[in-house]
């Protein structure tokens, strides 16, 4: 096969075949086009504003490493005027995060960004190793997954940062769209498709609450393939873990389906993402963006990515069962909570009417809040709007999943345990900046 020339510069040899449009590009044109498209995503969705401090959820993996590299490049090239910092979570599994955290430390140096590493022990009072010691290997994935979903928000709140960007890519979004489609969960599909899944301040009056953290995914339209190619051709230093090969069964199947579709018709991935967006528009209340985000009782983060890295540690089916159980609790609690809160204020006929609405709400959560609010005045809107009573995290239940799990753990803990509840969050000084001690012993090595 004679080497094809680049479709853009017509000079260099094409090395990349773009999945979205089959165009053949040389290395430098590909890098430039990839960056420009992310820039386009950022500007058309007004993801950033000048002066904003933005935490990049950094794992040392390909997605967050590429995200950090591209955002640094774009911030300089287009003068966004944003401040970028790296935020990493250490689950506290001995030996497990060592290599990835070392990678993040190198990235901090390579991209000249401050880095904060927060451990589960600082955020929850428990490392994953301690959790495993307490609950055994069975089901510890559930803890890890639930804790991880809140960890970035909790971490950002501690740093006083209101915006967290994550490396979720088009393949991730397509996978989630398929999963929710196959589960018949359109409301969740609607939330997870959104590029910004903020948990706006309407929910809480406390500006330091971690429910006010905005989340966005600048790589939402970027193919995983191109992210890997970008990292390869720019020689980025990233770390891979052996986790994704054994995710919970359902997510694994969705992922395999996406990858198989891609091989047959590469545009399928973005087509699924777009279909997800179009379906999201059909979900009641989703056409107005504020209504959608304000009324979503569960943050989109609850559904993204699953447990990820620790999935490899237990059988897939087990995890799926736990997830299913938690999901069922969700639905039950949602319908129940609605009635429970309102019943003391309303007559039985109203209650009957409301119960119907609560049931409707369980099928289409987005309509719920408006209807609920119209019926009864809330004594304590802070809780009723869907915040965890204990920690303030946006939740469809009175106590969020993390706090439920923590309660169970703390109950059985030896006497001198540290209780973790909302008070811990107020100890803003407790933030541990690992930047300095980490960086002094790190030397940059191309990987």
């Amino acid at each position, binding site marked *: 096969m004679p080497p094809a020339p680049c479709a853009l510069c017509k000079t260099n040899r094409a090395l990349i075949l773009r999945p979205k449009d089959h165009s053949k590009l040389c290395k430098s044109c590909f890098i430039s086009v990839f960056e420009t498209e992310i820039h386009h995503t950022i500007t058309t969705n007004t993801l950033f504003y000048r002066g904003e401090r933005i935490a990049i959820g950094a794992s040392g993996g390909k997605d967050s*490493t590429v995200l950090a590299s591209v955002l640094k490049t774009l911030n300089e090239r287009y003068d966004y005027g944003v401040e970028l910092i790296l935020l990493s979570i250490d689950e506290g599994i001995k030996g497990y995060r060592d290599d990835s955290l070392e990678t993040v430390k190198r990235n901090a140096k390579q991209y000249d960004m401050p880095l904060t590493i927060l451990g589960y022990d600082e955020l929850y009072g428990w490392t994953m190793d301690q959790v495993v010691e307490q609950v055994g290997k069975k089901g510890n994935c559930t803890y890890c997954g639930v804790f991880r979903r809140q960890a970035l928000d909790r971490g950002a709140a501690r740093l006083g940062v209101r915006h967290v960007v994550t490396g979720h890519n088009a*393949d991730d979004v397509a996978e989630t769209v398929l999963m929710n489609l196959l589960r018949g969960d359109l409301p969740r599909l609607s939330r997870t498709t959104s590029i910004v899944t903020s948990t706006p301040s309407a929910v809480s009056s406390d500006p330091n609450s971690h429910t006010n953290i905005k989340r966005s995914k600048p790589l939402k339209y970027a193919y995983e393939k191109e992210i*890997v190619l970008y990292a390869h051709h720019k020689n980025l230093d990233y770390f*891979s873990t052996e986790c994704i090969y054994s995710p919970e069964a359902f997510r694994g199947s969705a992922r395999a389906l996406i990858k198989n579709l891609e*091989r047959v018709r590469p545009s399928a991935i973005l087509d699924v993402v777009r279909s997800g967006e179009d379906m999201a528009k059909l979900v009641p209340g989703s056409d107005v963006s504020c209504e959608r985000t304000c009324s979503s009782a569960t943050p989109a983060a609850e559904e993204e990515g699953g447990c*990820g890295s620790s999935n490899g540690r237990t059988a897939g089916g087990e995890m799926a069962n736990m997830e299913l159980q938690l999901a069922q609790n969700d639905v039950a609690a949602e319908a129940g909570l609605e009635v429970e809160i309102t019943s003391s204020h309303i007559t039985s006929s109203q209650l009957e009417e409301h119960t119907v609405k609560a049931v409707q709400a369980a099928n289409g959560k987005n309509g719920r809040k408006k209807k609920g609010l119209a019926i009864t005045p809330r004594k304590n809107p802070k809780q009723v709007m869907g915040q965890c009573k204990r920690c303030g995290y946006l939740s469809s239940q009175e106590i969020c999943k993390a706090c439920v799990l923590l309660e169970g753990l703390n109950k059985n803990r030896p006497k001198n345990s540290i209780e973790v509840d909302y008070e811990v969050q107020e100890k803003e000084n407790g933030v541990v900046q690992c930047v300095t001690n980490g960086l002094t012993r790190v030397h940059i090595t191309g990987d």
Partner: protein
Amino acid sequence: MSSSKMKNADEIAITVEFSGGLEMLFSNERKHSLSIPANDQGGSRSNIASLVRYLCQNTMKDPRKDLFVLDGTVRPGILVLINDADWELEGEDKYEIKSGDNILFVSTLHGG
């Protein structure tokens, strides 16, 4: 290639690299300098398809072959770069391997 028929019976020296987590299936070595037969058992020139078979039989110690190969070809989600070019630009698994080639297998399936 200019090698004579005599040389066809010989081996060709190539570099095979694994990254993105795939190296974990190959003794945690990213870079493998290999000499592979210039022709496969059928007598035709070695291509990516025969290289993949060769790697499974000789190089891969990990028993989980299906993490690398699925339905007789490289598992979807694993990118193949031939001298830095996408293998789709080079004829995919029918690309005939030349001496000195660098073949990179990079997984997109691993997390971070």
